[in-house]
């Protein structure tokens, strides 16, 4: 007994376990392989399927401008995007934000990326060819390119981002949102919103949508590194609507352990960006909290399918709140 106690208090392994931090092996065996049936993966691994499914279920998504699914159609990109102020090219089966090209504006036949770099039409065509050949897809499978309209960052987030669009990651377990974080791109992440590429991760309290804690490359931060804005001021607007959207994504896919990426559009409100059947674990570092206690709590709920979205959101807001460690 004493030995166990010593282990839980004085070894790093024991302290992590005591805190309920979930490791990769545990996530894969206990949650992903148990709650995510393989047959449902295509729904989230293929962004076009996700989009169609979302539209079917009344979940808002960014507008689809066009799809290019074979090499022969690559030159059509100029015609498809003609007259569009800005657009975004994504591989349908990409992962980890790979292969996403965001064009801010088009001036005199030159395409400007969000960082101001100008590229020509052949560069865009080459990028689409790479997408079609499967360069960015899981397992190198042939893929196709989605062209979407740009998302207008909501004013509430303008002070918290550098170039890219900040997104909200929510882990939804058996239909209940359990943990969430905002991912803010910054100069050192080159406009990308992936934490391992240097983006800032901000843990969000489940009750209010208020920032709990922020980390960059594993270290706590209190201000956005580029805009110097205090992260303690960050509150996600339309918080309940965001959580309800996340819950709706579980209902439409049936994936028990799901990562939902949402954005807040200035004009259209909460939009579903993409779904992830193997969401990462950094969200625990951003929240300074382990996933396991929350997952275990939800596991005790019998017949979770009987709860409507509103009740599920209310449940999460009352049980998964956290005190902010940041100064407002």
């Amino acid at each position, binding site marked *: 007994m004493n030995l166990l106690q010593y282990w839980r208090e004085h070894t790093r392994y024991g302290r992590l376990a005591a*805190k309920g931090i979930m490791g*990769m092996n545990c996530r894969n065996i206990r949650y992903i392989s148990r*709650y995510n049936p393989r047959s449902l993966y295509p729904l989230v691994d293929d962004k076009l399927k996700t989009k169609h499914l979302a539209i079917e279920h009344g979940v808002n998504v960014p507008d689809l401008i066009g799809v290019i699914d074979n090499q022969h159609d690559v030159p059509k990109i100029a015609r498809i995007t003609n007259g569009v102020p800005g657009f975004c090219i994504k591989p349908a089966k990409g992962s980890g934000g790979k292969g996403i090209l965001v064009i801010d504006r088009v001036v005199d036949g030159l395409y400007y990326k969000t960082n101001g770099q100008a590229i020509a039409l052949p560069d865009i065509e080459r990028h689409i*060819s790479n997408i079609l050949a499967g360069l960015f897809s899981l397992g190198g499978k042939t893929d196709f390119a989605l062209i979407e309209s740009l998302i207008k960052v909501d004013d509430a987030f303008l002070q918290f981002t550098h170039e890219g669009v900040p997104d909200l990651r929510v882990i939804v377990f058996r239909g209940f949102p359990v943990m969430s974080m905002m991912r803010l791109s910054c100069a050192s992440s080159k406009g990308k919103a992936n934490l391992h590429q240097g983006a800032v991760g901000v843990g969000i309290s489940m009750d209010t949508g208020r920032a709990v804690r922020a980390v960059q490359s594993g270290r706590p931060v209190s201000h956005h590194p580029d805009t110097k804005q205090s992260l303690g001021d960050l509150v996600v607007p339309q918080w309940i609507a965001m959580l309800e959207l996340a819950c709706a994504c579980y209902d439409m896919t049936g994936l028990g352990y799901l990562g939902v990426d949402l954005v807040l559009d200035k004009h259209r409100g909460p939009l579903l960006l993409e779904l992830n059947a193997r969401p990462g674990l950094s969200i*625990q570092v951003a929240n300074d909290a382990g996933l396991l206690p929350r997952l275990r709590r939800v596991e005790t709920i019998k017949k979770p399918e009987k709860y409507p979205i509103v009740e599920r959101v209310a449940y999460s807001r009352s049980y998964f709140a956290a005190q902010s460690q940041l100064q407002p």
Partner: protein
Amino acid sequence: MSKTVSSNRVPLYILVLGLLATGLFLTFYRHIVFDVPWLPDAKRQIWSIEAKIEFEALGQPVRLSLAVPDNQPGFERVSEHTASPGYGLAFVEEGVKRRAEWSVREANGRQTLYYQVDMLFDESSFNKMLGTPPQIETVTYSGPEETAVTQLLQRARSRSADPFTMTRELIAEFNNESQVAQLLVQQKSRERRLVEMLNLAGIPARVVQTLFLEDGRRRQSLVSYLQVFSGDEYALFNPQSGQQGQVTNQLLWEQNSGSLLDLVGGRDSRVSFSIISQEVPAARIYQEKVAHLKNAMDFSIHSLPLEEQTMFKGILLIPVGVLVVVIMRILVGIRTSGTFMPVLIALAFIQTTLITGLVGFFLIVGVGLIIRSYLSRHNLLLVARISAVIISVIIIIAVFSILAYGLGLAEGLKVTFFPMIILSWTIERMSILWEEEGAKEVFVQGGGSLMVAVLAYLVMINPVVRHLMFNFIGLQLVFMALVLMCGNYTGYRLSELRRFKPLVQGN
């Protein structure tokens, strides 16, 4: 949502226990019943050599005679057997001359005969090189040949003291006087000429066919050496370099200046050798040909033909490498590019040795990355680009081999052992990683893969591991059980203890 994957782990644990029990039972069974030792013992090393004779029979009576090895300093014949269905067989001995003779009334088409011999390596008798010297045969020369021979012999004699130094000087003369040498080897082989000249100088000598014994080799052939006598004592000479001495893994297969194979009634004959080294307990060796004991319960690779055995020596090691990868990925959490690429690289390292392998790997991948970065400018489709990388890798390997050979680095030739398709994919993946995540991630993953590969290599070349894996096939089941157990580990990876360190610091 109902659970789709069983959360009940009991059947898995039963499977693991079953595999462990069966595997350990088979292992102990082999140890106790067949007396296979746990540890390799170099002093009781047996070389099993298989000669595979292939020829095209012409539909006539066939007579086939193969020179076979006899006891000799360093090697003792323990057992021999043949596989030649339908053929009559006799071993003919004339003094030290031993031959296996096969005959059949009529044979048609492609024929394959096997002769296998087990030679016990005996280091103690290796120092006394004694044998019966052959008769001296005097050949008479005339014309320019006579002048050449006399000249070479005179020079060699003036610089030598005994038959052995004489031989060395004669070969040196042969190498220096290339024109004279060329004249002499026009009609007879270099070795025959050297023997004739030594005989002329009153030194008994003959051409012997030797086989270099290396574990796990296939399709080897014999190499001609000179055997020169001084009284009863003899020494071997490399007829090309003049180097004196017999290495401990050099077996005299044919030592009577005879032919290796005589064939009547067939054509297109070919003899190739497969070699394998085994550790057998001394007690078993003298138990008289226990090698033939083929029991249904003897679940060992040893019941297969030697050529297949040599192949399995490598294959049976793969689970060890795979387990290393599983441990490094699941328990330690090292990222590698391509899950089992490290095992394949480790297998290549076994062939090339570590330093050569590492140098080769860096050269190939480095040059490959440069070529790949050039290709990426041309907007190619993925399949075509990888194919181009594969061809580049093959060209790189060819160029390195030729360069290394030209520079006299025989080691360099071993780069051909690298799995080319795998290397091409590695280059492609690393190149994409470089473009997307930067050089750092390439070094993290490349270094991780290489580290795992080196680790797997170090485990796989361990003589104890090799001995155990080859001799105890039951261990395969044990490894299976270990891998299944790793697949059930839900704890933290070592790397995660570092990753989540900020969560338990302070407070």
